[in-house]
């Protein structure tokens, strides 16, 4: 049975889970999407523990609301939408906490990436350092832009899929991706000469 399930597409698996309440189908979908979702949510919220909780919540929501999935949509789009909504709520909550907190220790405020004195030019060529800087710069990009940039450039989704996940028009998605990339480029100007 399990071997047969492995050959099924995501949409067929969710149908199996909806119709026959097959937990194996559910488990298989979890196995397929836990890592991509984890990567997406982590790049979006910037915290591994929070990202893990969000992905766990996404899977629970998927389990509880399996019937709300309609077969005309792609399963990946649907599950990304759930995870994206939870991540956005988390970011809003964190923003409120930062506003009312007397001591702002938000990670986003820690580093001025555009400070050229931060990394010596000879060290900037080092892959690990440049990667670290990209990660930090990505955290500094506005969340509305960061979300779509991550979906496009990190997760490799199409514009249509991103538009469906974010419930935006394709034009808005493209505009936001462009702005996000420009922000990132500005932040990384000492290692990236674009």
């Amino acid at each position: 049975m399990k071997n047969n399930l492995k050959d099924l597409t995501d949409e067929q698996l969710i149908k199996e889970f909806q119709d026959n309440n097959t937990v194996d189908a559910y488990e298989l979908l979890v196995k397929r999407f836990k890592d991509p979702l984890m990567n997406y949510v982590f790049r979006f919220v910037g915290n591994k523990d929070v990202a893990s909780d969000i992905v766990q919540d996404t899977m629970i929501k998927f389990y509880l609301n399996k019937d709300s999935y309609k077969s005309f949509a792609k399963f990946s789009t649907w599950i990304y939408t759930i995870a994206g909504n939870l991540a956005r709520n988390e970011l809003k909550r964190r923003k409120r906490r930062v506003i009312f907190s007397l001591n702002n220790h938000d990670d986003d405020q820690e580093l001025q990436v555009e400070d050229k004195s931060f990394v010596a030019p000879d060290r900037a060529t080092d892959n690990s350092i440049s990667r670290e800087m990209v990660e930090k710069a990505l955290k500094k990009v506005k969340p509305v832009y960061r979300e779509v940039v991550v979906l496009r450039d990190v997760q490799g989704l199409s514009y249509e899929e991103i538009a469906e996940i974010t419930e935006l028009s394709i034009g808005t998605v493209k505009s936001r991706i462009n702005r996000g990339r420009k922000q990132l480029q500005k932040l990384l100007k000492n290692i990236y000469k674009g």
Partner: protein
Amino acid sequence: MNKKFYNEDSEHQEIIKLLKDLPKVTASDNFEFNLMTHINNKNFKIKSEQKQSNFFWVLVPATGLVISAVVIFFVFFNQSNEFNLLLQEPAKIMGSVNNNDYPKNLNDVILDQKPLGNSYAGAVSKKKSATSEPKQSKTLRIVVKPNDVIDEEYVNLPFDKSKSVNVDAAIDNFSKNSTQPQSTLVGGVRKQSGFDGFYIREQLNRKFLKEWRARLDSINKNLNQRVNSLR
């Protein structure tokens, strides 16, 4: 015709490459186990939504606002009571401003002004000497009028200055030289003070007076009748 508004991927090739090269983050090894444990135990609490229902962040500014409002209210409430002249009786304010408070001619008051120092005190003392000081024992009182004019007035207090004594000195003297005659304290036995103390003014009872007047009239009438009969 198909105008390209955004250069899309071609313009930011290097950024895209940097983002693609970022290491992939994976879920923890026990992710599935934890998830299935939650589901099997029917523990469907969604952590991120639970955190959202915490309204403490609303209470913090609300509490601050209420406290500041209360403080501001009390501050302004007290100030308005202290400085609101409208609450005072207008007659009192007008009555307190007297033409006598202003000297008509400064020469009347300042007879010999000294070049330095006690200018106003000198003026006051000269005024005191210029005016005929009452020989009776009266207490001089400095009064600050509402229009900031300082004036002095003599007040008849029921204490005789000649009989007044420094209480501390008297006690000290008594303890040192008990043989010496003791001083008399204020209101001593030599002369009785005119001060009778406070008494309550009673209101007239008209009914009671009428009754007694009627009685007295009847007695007088009766007496007159008797006198006439005896004659």
